[in-house]
């Protein structure tokens, strides 16, 4: 039995990632050290987590531009709360997750209730979240808390000196959790259904409204979680942080083989999309000769190469039309 053609983009992504890693390794043998692998996980943890939420949103055919700002807001919120109140970080985290989830839910409600395009509603959300961060503080606020330092420091030292950090682990957990939600729950099935066509989904009995709210709430939750991870990662809150992260996340999701039009994709693919983005960054740093502008150009070109490769692999793998195989 041949694998479902729907798996091909995912397989292509994974194959390309490992090939690219191999090529990097040939050029810089050090790339294969556990340090680099550990860094790849740690440095992209926040991106991976937020990309899980983005994957679910994109699977439903929507888009969430607010996540970058929500991450920044989360950092500022945590920092300011820890500075100004005596609350324990855990409680602050819980509060934050409630806030960001509610924020997402409200956006979802507007999107559904007023039939407005997600792009615009979440664009307004993006302005709003960053504006809210400014209103909390315009300064960058350090986080000094023993518990926080413990979180920052918790890692498992891999053989070879690399660190497998808590936040790296958290990202892998988020991916696993996201995969379960998207592929193994009724909510996830409804997400795919809406991505396949909201009208048809409605006729099939999907509660489109409730699901839409759930989708954006989930994305908000993931953005909040990502904000926590980012705060742990940087140990501070900064209202200007993570500008443009939503676009990076979208790119990662798309490289991961999820269709922007919705209805097809895998959460695991997103992990490889994120790692691919991280690999590009790492490669550029290892190279170390590119000027600022060439850095931008090369990132774009590599992105294009990945997408073209994926396209051509898919074209080879699938015949003219899915329906035309005998």
């Amino acid at each position, binding site marked *: 039995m041949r694998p479902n053609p729907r798996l091909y983009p995912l397989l292509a992504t994974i194959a390309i990632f490992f090939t690219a890693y191999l090529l990097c390794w040939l050029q810089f043998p050090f790339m294969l050290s556990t340090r680099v692998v550990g860094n790849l996980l740690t440095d992209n943890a926040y991106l991976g987590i937020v990309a899980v939420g983005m994957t679910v949103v994109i699977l439903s055919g929507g888009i969430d531009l607010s996540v970058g700002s929500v991450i920044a807001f989360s950092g500022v919120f945590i920092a300011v709360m820890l500075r100004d109140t005596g609350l324990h970080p855990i409680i602050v985290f819980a509060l934050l997750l409630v806030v960001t989830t509610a924020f997402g839910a409200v956006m979802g409600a507007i999107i559904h209730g007023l039939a407005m395009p997600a792009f615009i509603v979440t664009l307004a959300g993006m302005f709003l979240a960053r504006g809210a961060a400014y209103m909390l503080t315009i300064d960058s606020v350090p986080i000094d808390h023993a518990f926080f330092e413990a979180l920052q420091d918790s890692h498992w030292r891999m053989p070879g000196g690399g660190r497998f950090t808590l936040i790296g682990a958290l990202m892998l957990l988020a991916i696993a959790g996201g995969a379960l939600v998207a592929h*193994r729950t009724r909510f996830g099935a409804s997400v795919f259904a809406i991505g396949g066509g909201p009208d048809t989904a409605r006729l099939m009995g*999907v509660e489109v409204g409730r699901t839409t709210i759930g989708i954006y709430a989930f994305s908000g939750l993931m953005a909040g979680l990502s904000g926590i991870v980012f705060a742990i990662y940087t140990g501070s809150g900064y209202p200007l942080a993570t500008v443009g992260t939503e676009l990076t996340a979208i790119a990662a999701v798309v490289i991961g083989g999820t269709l922007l039009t919705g209805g097809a994709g895998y959460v695991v693919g997103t992990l490889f999309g994120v790692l691919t983005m991280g690999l590009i960054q790492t490669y550029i740093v290892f190279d170390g000769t590119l000027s600022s502008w060439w850095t931008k150009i090369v990132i774009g070109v590599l992105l294009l190469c990945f997408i073209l490769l994926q396209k051509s692999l898919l074209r080879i793998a699938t015949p*003219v039309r899915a*329906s035309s*195989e005998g």
Partner: protein
Amino acid sequence: MLLTIRDLSKSFPGTKALDSVDFDLAAGEVHALLGENGAGKSTLIKCLTGAYRRDEGDIRLDGEPISPGSTAEAQSLGIGTVYQEVNLLDNLTVAKNLTFGREPRRFGLIDGRAQRAEARRMLEGYGLDIDVGRDLGSYSVAIRQIVAIARAVELSGKILILDEPTASLDAAETRMLFDVVRGLRDRGLGIVFVSHFLDQVFELTDRVTVLRNGAKIVTEKTAELDRVALIRHMLGRELEEVEAEQGADHTRSEARRTVVDFKGYGRDGLVDPFDLTVREGEVIGLAGLLGSGRTETAELMFGIRAAQRGEAKVDGEPVSLTSPREAIAAGFGFAPEERKTDGIVADLSVRENIILALQARRGWAKPVPRAEQARLAETYIKRLDIRTSDAEKAVGELSGGNQQKVVLARWLAMNPRFLILDEPTRGVDVGAHAEILRLIGEITEGGMSVLVISSELDELVAASDRIIVVRDRAHVAELSGVEITSGAIVTAIAAPDAGKVA
């Protein structure tokens, strides 16, 4: 009464789709809901299942007033529905479509294995041997339709609603569906059946309700009606039966001039190389089972898929047909089978849809003058009896059959030399059906050549000068003249290895 509907009304901007309609459904009956295109059948069904919010009216199930706010609610009330043209979700696997909303779970998570097993169980009795783990979109319309039916049957605890379920099924599958429906009826379900095939209505149903222009005309026992009376109820007038037993003159074709000539035309994995000569003013029928490769043949000829081998000649000159544009330039026209995805442009008006191909051929710099557009729209709205409040209404808001007519009008307006019609009468009412057949006769009189793909053998027999039989992606037989009979076609489709199922 299982279900009673009283004074149901529903308006869309500019149209009163339902006007105080009453409808009763008893347990253990199959009740036909009939009417012309745009009469309001689908709207009635959608109001009943909560897909539309009704303006007024009272719906009772087992005597209890119900008012489903969503289709999910209707499903939980035991109402299973196959909507017209909604063939479930193409991007999900067959199994997920079938079990959607009732997925078997273990520890709160969907159990994929059980899900597939459940799906296979649901498909038993429909004679379908397909991999339920594949995307629904990779199967043909017919299969998608059967899957939709299987799903609705499973959901219907009390009521099963079928809105034109047989439009894309062939005879064997229809028979299978009827068996299933009868079984459900005997188990005490109430079944609403919408169809434009009157034979099927007489064969299957116990009672008939006819709608016209959104109003209920009559409810009668099927046995007490005859065909003529039924059509009179539907149309509000008598129908001049144009489909005389031998509509086409099957003998005239040989002498005519060749317009298009395909030699060894084919594409690997799609259609085996075939020869086909199209003569002026000739109607060629393409017969075959579902999935036999008829649509593919048409798509190949029209350049939607490029041919790998063989050549095509128009008027003796070789032409390349690698895109619809080239085919149109060569004088071809093509009304596709899947009107929703390949035919109509939903948000454009009826007028714009009709002139679209014409405009594309003229190029962007030479717009069709407004007066000309209006004239064409008027002409075809009248000629094909397209039910629309005016020519500026968006095509997506028309009823299914009327959308089909708009697509036809688009190609007739082009006045092509060779017109390919893939299931042109799918979903159109009796009146329009007859009108379309009459039109085919009329345009071929004028010298246009037509290739018709249809699953209705009677229709093919009535209209065609020649019939090509397609089986397993190959053209296996050609019938002409007096050979053209339903029986001969069926034999050709089945032979020589009748034991093998397609």
